[in-house]
């Protein structure tokens, strides 16, 4: 009977424990830049959502395309209206897994260079991507950082010939997040 109680306890506590071990942020920073011969374009978003589950190594990101801020208002409008079609495709989403996540001791302070493999959905098109990044664990909090370069054409975003010198064919994306424990 004692055993039964122990088992019962485990049965109820275990799921809560594993749920608590997930980490999240609602203030993830994503910025991207396009470096074309005529023009350098930069945009920032500081309201990205992300959840990290150390147990499974899963990492997911979601960002509102309209929340990207540009230096030029017209550029921002064109970005949403002409290129990203943000009304139709409001979000960009990444779902991936930190490779060899089981080799990381998530409870100990330290920095780990990692590869994150997953799928990236932009403009309604989903592609496989691999990104190099760094995960830093310090005093119970986790931060992650990465950059990757993607080709605009991979996501069926058309750049008209008139502006081919103003918009680069590839865009560099910088990602940064400070995670906090997710308490349900």
């Amino acid at each position, binding site marked *: 009977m004692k055993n039964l109680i122990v*088992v019962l306890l485990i*049965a109820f506590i275990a799921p809560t424990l594993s749920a608590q071990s997930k980490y999240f942020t609602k203030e993830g920073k994503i910025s991207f830049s396009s470096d074309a011969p005529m023009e350098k374009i930069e945009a920032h978003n*500081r309201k990205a959502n992300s959840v990290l589950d150390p147990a499974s190594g899963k990492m997911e990101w979601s960002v509102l395309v309209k929340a990207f801020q540009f*230096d*030029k*208002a*017209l550029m921002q409008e064109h970005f949403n209206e*002409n290129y990203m079609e943000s009304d139709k495709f409001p979000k960009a989403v990444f779902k991936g897994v930190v490779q060899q996540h089981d080799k990381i001791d998530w409870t100990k302070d330290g920095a780990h260079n990692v590869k994150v493999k997953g799928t990236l959905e932009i403009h309604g098109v989903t592609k496989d991507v691999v990104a190099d990044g760094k995960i830093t664990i310090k005093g119970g909090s986790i931060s992650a950082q990465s950059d990757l370069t993607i080709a605009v054409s991979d996501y069926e975003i058309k750049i008209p010939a008139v502006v081919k010198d103003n918009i680069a064919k590839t865009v560099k994306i910088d990602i940064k997040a400070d995670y906090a424990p997710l308490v349900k």
Partner: protein
Amino acid sequence: MKKILYLIFLGCTCLFQVNAQDDTDLLSMLGEEETIDYTSAAFKTNRVINLHSLENTARGVLDFKISHRFGFINGGAYEFFGLDNATIRLGLDYGITNNFQIGIGRSGFEKTFDGYMKYRLLRQSTGKRRMPITLSILAASAIRGQKWTRDEVEYPFFARFNYTYQLILGRKFSDNFSLQLSPTVVHRNLVLTRTEMNDVFALGIAMRQRITRRLALNVEYIYVLPDQIAPGLKHSLSIGCDIETGGHVFQLHFTNSTAMNEKGFIAETTGDWLKGGIRFGFNVSRVFTIVKPKLED
């Protein structure tokens, strides 16, 4: 019996664990946070053709506008179908806030200097705040610089002024189609004959239909209530397209109006579409960012 129970519960525990770890959508754990999603780009610039559109110049942005209206097409080959002559307006629009915009302009037509203020009271949005329409209010004033044609009459200075008050009410119905109404009153301090009213009430209607990502068709028509303007004058009707490149918007159009300020195109349009009283014209808009927007935290 105990052992069986034990096994069953162990099984349950494992299942729970697996379930908790196998959450396919981690992001759903964060819940959806609703944001206010403002509708943008109902029109490509802050003008439809002659009329002010639903759009405002963004905060810190200066919009330099170069507008031309050529001569009447029915001038024929001798006048090179109107292209020999042009009336010009040079204008500057500036966004003080995202909803408050001011502007000045100088037109060749009657050597007019004009200025206006435009404030957006309601902005179409979805999400956390739902607003089906955009509503702006416009107050404009223009002063005639041209010398009076009759030297023997001494006109008072205030005779040179006219004022326009306008509501701009509309909606972007879809990605491609926007429609607006512009109820307007124009006050002229001086009118030439007794048949003309100092206050002219009019209703503008304007629409945009997008054809491709960067090309849109614009139409605007201004109905003037009867018995207010001199006989023989026409209602302004303009049809044009917006072509957009990087930092420029080119608006090319055909219109029966000459002037590019409200008093002129609402109350003094002379061209008759049916008789070829149409002018080719364009507005070129070039924007400059004066104050860079601050990044929101």
